[in-house]
């Protein structure tokens, strides 16, 4: 059996040019169009659906996300196993993931859109998302101002490197993926049963 991690060409070389190759950008345009289309059709560009999820009144967001995770996982891991795709794993840094995650959530509740759904919301004419988008740009800048400091502090707390759940639990990826797909699917059935929307 091939080791998929070794078999696919690595793509992590730092980008040199200010503009990515046109063919690559073309893919971004096509897939971005599809993503925005799906987000809006799924209702997750709507303020009341996003906030409704955080109020635990409307479970549309959870249904969309869990289905995407199940379907995505069921394709990505086989493709990776047969060396057709690279995995793109971000490092686990417990301090940064937890603190950043909590801040993100708080901001999400205040703004009512998240970075991707804000874009879809703009497309559907929810102009208030523009305030949030301006805030996202400003917040990114503020983070950059602090990034030297966060690198020396928060990002060092609990730095575990790139870790997948099955590696952490010392189980084989294939069976683990099958179990997780089963569990998440069961979770979706429960959501569907108890939350009509």
């Amino acid at each position, binding site marked *: 059996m091939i080791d998929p991690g070794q078999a696919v060409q690595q793509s992590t070389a730092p980008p040199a040019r200010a503009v990515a190759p046109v063919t690559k950008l073309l893919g971004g345009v096509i897939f*971005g169009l599809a*993503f*925005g289309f799906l*987000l*809006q059709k799924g*209702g997750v560009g709507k*303020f*009341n659906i996003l*906030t*409704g999820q*955080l*109020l635990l*009144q*409307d479970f549309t967001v959870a*249904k969309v996300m869990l*289905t*995407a*995770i199940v*379907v*995505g*996982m069921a*394709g*990505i891991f086989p*493709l990776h196993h047969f060396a057709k795709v690279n995995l*793109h794993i971000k490092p*686990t840094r417990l301090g*940064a993931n937890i603190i*950043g*995650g*909590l801040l*993100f*959530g*708080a*901001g*999400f509740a*205040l*703004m*009512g859109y*998240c*970075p*991707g759904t804000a*874009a879809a919301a703009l*497309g*559907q*004419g*929810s102009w*208030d998302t523009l305030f*949030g988008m301006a805030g*996202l*740009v*400003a917040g*990114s800048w*503020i*983070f*950059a101002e602090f990034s030297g400091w966060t690198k020396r502090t928060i990002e060092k707390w609990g730095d575990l490197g790139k*870790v*997948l*759940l099955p590696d952490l639990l010392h189980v084989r990826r294939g069976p683990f*993926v099958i179990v997780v797909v089963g569990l998440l699917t069961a979770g979706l059935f429960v959501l*569907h049963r108890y939350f009509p929307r």
Partner: protein
Amino acid sequence: MRTSYKVALLLGGLAWLASPTVFAAGNAVNSLDYPGPAWSPYVVGAGIGVLSWLTFYFSDEPIGASSFYAGVSGFIGKLFAKRHTQSLAYFKDNPPRVSWEFVFVLATIVGGALAAVTGGEFVNEWLPPMWQARFGDSLALRAAFGTGGGVLMAFGARLAGGCTSGHGISGTMQLNLASWISVICFFIGGITVAMTLFKP
């Protein structure tokens, strides 16, 4: 960056965070009274899952959104203070560029517009009705919450390493530990603040 500048930013942020407590009881709202999704969430979720296969296979990229905003901030920064921008650790590691994700998010706006127009859901509104029911007609208040929320969210996304797309969908489907921890924290933080804001 000078220390006084950092302290001012932090204090400003904290004061802003405390501001919602100023708003006393308003109307209770139920999000289910407002429009739902046009399509089944399972169909849309499956579509996004398949889209992920395609972005991995054809573009060698995971779906993500938040770094778009960092890119925009970097471009603006380079316009006004090129050397300072290039001296910042984040922009040293991630120089602003017209990347795959950059055009991806721009196209997401257009995709959202196509979906809204074809589905008769182009709303053309400055205040979401549910927001109005809870907080009234002030656009300034919405602007303050939106901008402040955006600032916090971007800071959090950069610290955590991704957003609801990059961690919440792309990372979790790869069974990335960082992503599962982050997305759980997104919802802990989000549910706590939303409950405080919307349940008087």
